[in-house]
């Protein structure tokens, strides 16, 4: 299995004009070269997702959403693509805003908080493939890495809430800590079951398995349930309605980011949408066949040979995984703009008394299922 990093190292190492024993230079160059696309992806993702969020919410609410801000005078369409420059304007404005740090705040922690959250999201992308071989580094412990690194983010949230020296922020941080730690368990357990079936923690192996057999969503009723638990817990991990209690606007003003302004606040925003993308991509890879074409299975039943009909291949793979991820992100938005929010104790109830028992039972039953049918 090749990864983006491996290919780059080989490419650079093989170039004629690169001197011998230049491992250090190659290392630095490759690090920058692989970090750049991740950063660009996160930024772009946040911009597109915010625009999408505003438009989706607007259409659900009988409104139009942003319409007037365009790029170079081009405002998009009359209805659907209107206001296409909105998030660019938002981003530029946020960069140009005053950076306020409350006088009573703990300066160092206040500054470092958002960056820890951002760093966690950033590092998580290293392990997530977005196509066959399109991964920064293909760990053989991929799932473990992603879960471990993404849960570092909670430290940033707690630091931000604590350092702000604001009671609302503190409440937001406390709630967030409780929530993120609780929902780590169902996330891990529902993934454990896939690992059990496949016998590998590597993302590529999981997709390969699905290519040979079938998508995990359709594999057995237990894996379908695991998908639901994983996705719902994932929504909770990224603090979105109905689990958005850490930043519950009608209760805690803006939760742990109440005191943040401008650039620092936009980092929170960036990380939130990056985390959304992570959850959507992981669900797509693990349960929905990753970069496999949904048409592949269909045509294979007609015994057609591999061909263009399947729309398969490395670049089509990126297309399919994006489609799946965007669909899941849309579902998150759909839920957010439709449902009310849960109370903190009900949130804990859902995690500890519903998701975790079901996830545990799931592991047991899928084992039996595999023994009997696998």
């Amino acid at each position, binding site marked *: 299995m090749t990864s983006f990093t491996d290919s780059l190292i080989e490419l650079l190492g093989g170039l004629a004009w690169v001197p011998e024993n230049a491992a250090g230079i190659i290392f630095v160059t490759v690090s920058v070269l692989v970090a750049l696309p991740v950063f660009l992806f996160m930024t772009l993702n946040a911009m597109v997702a915010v625009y999408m969020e505003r438009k989706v919410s*607007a259409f659900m609410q009988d409104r*139009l959403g*942003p319409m007037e801000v365009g790029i170079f005078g081009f405002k998009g369409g009359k209805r659907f693509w209107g206001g296409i420059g909105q998030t660019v*304007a938002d981003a*530029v404005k946020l960069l*140009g805003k005053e950076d*306020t740090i409350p006088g009573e705040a703990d300066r160092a922690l206040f500054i470092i908080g958002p960056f820890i959250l951002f760093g966690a999201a950033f590092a998580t992308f290293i392990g997530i493939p977005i196509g066959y071989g399109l991964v920064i580094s293909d760990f053989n412990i991929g799932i473990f890495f992603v879960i471990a690194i993404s849960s570092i983010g909670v430290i940033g949230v707690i630091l931000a809430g604590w350092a702000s020296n604001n009671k609302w922020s503190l409440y937001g941080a406390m709630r967030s800590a409780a929530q993120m730690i609780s929902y780590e368990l169902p996330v891990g357990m529902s993934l454990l079951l896939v690992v059990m079936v496949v016998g590998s923690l590597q993302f590529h192996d999981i997709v390969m398995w699905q290519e040979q057999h079938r998508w995990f969503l359709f594999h057995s009723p237990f894996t379908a349930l695991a998908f639901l638990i994983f996705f719902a817990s994932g929504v909770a991990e990224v603090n979105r309605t109905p689990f958005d209690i850490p930043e519950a606007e009608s209760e805690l003003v803006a939760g742990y980011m*109440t005191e943040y302004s401008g650039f620092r606040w936009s980092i929170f925003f960036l990380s939130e949408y990056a985390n959304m993308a992570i959850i959507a991509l992981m669900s797509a890879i693990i349960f929905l066949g990753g970069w496999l074409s949904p048409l592949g299975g269909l045509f294979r039943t007609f015994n057609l040979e591999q061909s263009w009909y399947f729309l398969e291949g490395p670049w089509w793979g990126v297309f399919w995984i994006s489609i799946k991820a965007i669909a899941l992100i849309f579902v998150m938005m759909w839920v957010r703009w439709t449902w009310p929010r849960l109370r903190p104790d009900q949130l804990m109830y859902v995690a500890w008394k519903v998701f975790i028992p079901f996830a545990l039972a799931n592991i047991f039953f899928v084992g039996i299922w595999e023994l009997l049918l696998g």
Partner: protein
Amino acid sequence: MAVSLVNRFEQDNIIVEQIDNLLNWARAGSPWYFQFGLACCAIEMMAAAAPRYDLERFGAMPRSSPRQADVMIVAGTVTLKMATRVKRLYEQMANPKYVISMGSCANSGGPYWQYGYHVLKGVDLVVPVDVYVPGCPPRPEALMQGLLELQKKIKEDTPLRRVS
């Protein structure tokens, strides 16, 4: 170094001017407003954000924390008990910040100017106001007009150039 930068900005420089234009475009394009509903006008402010008028078309998004807001829409009567809070919340907003005074009460005390012993006679006594929207209460269209006027005002601003 800093001095030389400022000196350079004082002359009209094409790059600085373009950055100015970019910042102004961005600031005018996303005036996130602080939900500062005080009285009757707050209902019209909510109506302006609701489907028929939809303030979000201009990029305006309601924020409930002053730190993240650009525009404070003072909608309604400011009383003396509230005046100190208005000032404090204004001070908590991050620069650049703007204030729209919505409705007669916030402009000048409105119908309460004569006998209202507990009413602040105009919010401009405590915070600087950029745009006054008249009416009691102003229609949502009037608030939108006020927002457009504010956008015009923002676009004439020169954030980097120091024009004396």
